[in-house]
């Protein structure tokens, strides 16, 4: 596969295997400098760290798959986190003492993400508005609403059973990893083994043809953005439980990481192409780059630049891939 000149190298690098190879080469390359990476604990830690980003990137992939984009990620995380925490927190939470508090709150968070996503999808599909602006407004409005609701304060004092469950291990593997793995499997099955998945792909490949084939573009678009919103809410749960508190002003940069992970993992920004496997390694790779550069004791700005460089390479690979697919190299 690799033999056969620079063109096939490009073609290989452009497949989702490319990012797998990239991640491994990267790990091997930095191993001599920070041997700690080679311990079981640290390997698990790296995976756990990548998990929430993976959840976000998988959500983003739904929007990218149909040729759209979802910028509202940080807004949904903030608002969902705050809503959940307001229900749960032991200082003044609405459901603080109820035994049903945890499931109800988690459900409310996921539901909120889903509903917001569907609403954005509807604006994109039925009002024919550009996804970029719709979700940008979503980001601003939801971020603002979260700050408003809390007065800017972080909400802590979450119920211990929830925190212990999410932070703990199950069968010697961290629960967060189970969650992310389960989501990845669900996404993989959904995309590959369900009618809806086939319809999402069709919409991304050629929306006009999909419409003629009797696929309801509105519903599929709403689903894609709804899925993206739900994944953001799930990520909000993970983030909230990891940091044991919900912030009303979640860092916007996470969006760029999520898009970066998806694109490095072989998702095409022009739609119709997504690989769950690729995204898993894309998220892992982005997290590894960030953390290992810290381990190498490089400065914060170097981390930023390295991340930018990686995304740039992904951009060029995306272009090369489109060139190969479109018959021009």
């Amino acid at each position, binding site marked *: 596969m690799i033999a056969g000149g620079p063109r096939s190298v490009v073609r290989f690098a452009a497949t989702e295997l490319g990012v797998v190879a990239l991640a491994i080469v990267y790990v091997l390359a930095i191993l001599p400098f920070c041997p700690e990476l080679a311990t079981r604990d640290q390997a698990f830690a790296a995976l756990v760290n990548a998990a929430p980003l993976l959840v976000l990137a998988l959500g983003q992939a739904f929007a990218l798959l149909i040729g759209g984009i979802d910028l509202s990620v940080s807004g949904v995380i903030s608002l969902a986190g705050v809503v959940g925490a307001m229900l749960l927190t032991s200082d003044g939470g609405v459901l603080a003492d109820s035994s049903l508090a945890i499931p109800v709150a988690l459900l409310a968070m996921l539901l909120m993400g889903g509903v917001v996503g569907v609403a954005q999808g509807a604006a994109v599909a039925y009002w024919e508005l550009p996804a970029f602006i719709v979700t940008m407004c979503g980001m601003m409005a939801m971020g603002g609403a979260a700050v408003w609701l809390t007065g800017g304060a972080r909400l802590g004092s979450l119920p211990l059973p929830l925190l212990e469950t999410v932070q703990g291990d199950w069968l010697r593997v961290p629960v967060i990893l189970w969650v992310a793995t389960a989501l990845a499997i669900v996404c993989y099955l959904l995309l590959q083994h369900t009618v809806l998945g086939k319809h999402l792909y069709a919409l991304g490949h050629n929306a006009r043809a999909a419409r003629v084939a009797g696929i309801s573009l509105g519903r599929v678009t709403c689903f894609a953005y709804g899925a993206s919103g739900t994944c953001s809410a799930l990520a909000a749960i993970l983030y909230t439980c990891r940091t044991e508190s919900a912030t009303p002003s979640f860092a916007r940069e996470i969006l760029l990481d999520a898009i970066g992970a998806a694109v490095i993992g072989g998702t095409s920004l022009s739609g119709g192409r997504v690989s769950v496997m690729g995204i898993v390694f894309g998220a892992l790779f982005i997290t590894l780059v960030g953390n290992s550069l810290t381990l190498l004791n490089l400065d914060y700005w170097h981390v*930023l*630049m390295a991340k*930018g460089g990686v995304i*740039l390479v992904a951009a060029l690979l995306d272009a090369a891939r489109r060139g190969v697919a479109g018959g021009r190299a």
Partner: protein
Amino acid sequence: MTRFLVNHSPALLLVAVLIGFSIGSPRFLTPQNAVNLLTQGASATILAAGMTWVLVTSGVDLSAGSLMFLVAAACGKMLQSDVEPLMAAVAAAAIGPLCGVAHGMLIAYAGASPFIVTLASLFLLRGAGLWFSRTRAMNLPEAFSRWGAEKLLGVPLPVWVAGVVVLVLYWLQTHTAFGRQCYAVGYDPAAARKAGVHVRAALMKTYALSGACAAIAALTALTQLGAVSPTFGKDREFDAIAAAVLGGASLFGGRGNVFPGAVIGAMTVASVFNGLNVMNANPYVYPLITAAVVFLAMLFDGLRRRQLVQSARTMRWNVEGAR
């Protein structure tokens, strides 16, 4: 009537915002506040003008805010090592178009998507700026920051700069072949190529312009602030896109203009912030109101697009009816 409303929605939205705030506070609609508004909107207007140009070619430039920071950091660094202020400003400003050309190359020749190229740049340039400045804040010498307060014929210098930039871009956009061809490129690149337009050159120039605008916007803001902090320019690209869209530019390309569009858009954003300040509004409602205004603008824009399609159909009907 509806047609008039929809066609002039950007200007009407601005007027509505202005009227709304004048009712809210008697101190809003005063000559001083008008000058004030223009001064504050200066750098935003410049940035929005550059962004509008990129949107016209159906691209986007997410790196604008980071580029602003890199330029500011470079300028600050030079000023601190006692470079002549004017020299420092010019040298720092040169970074803008250079980065723009790099974007243009990757987009026009390597065929990479504008979104992801400039996304990468967003990280790279801010990292570079932080590297330059070692994340230190810098206070700039009086000789430099004085320019921000300087007035010419009673109008502050930043307003003049914004005016000149807008004028130049307006001239480029309406009075040069390059400017006109950009509309063709944005409407349909393939058709433009067929019609003999040098699409790649147009894209290169476009991103160079956008970079130059970011640099000038950075310097304009810098003279007003007199200091560089590591957060300088953060998230400004989103504001600029919002302003451009408010001014009637379309993310689908081929539509939008520097004057009056981008100016109206930037002024609307500035008015909202200014008006809320003047009314001493609850700090928490700021993002909500801004989001609402942008969404409203976009909704009008969607209506306008559909009306255009509708009228094209009606026209054909009339034609055949007459036959």
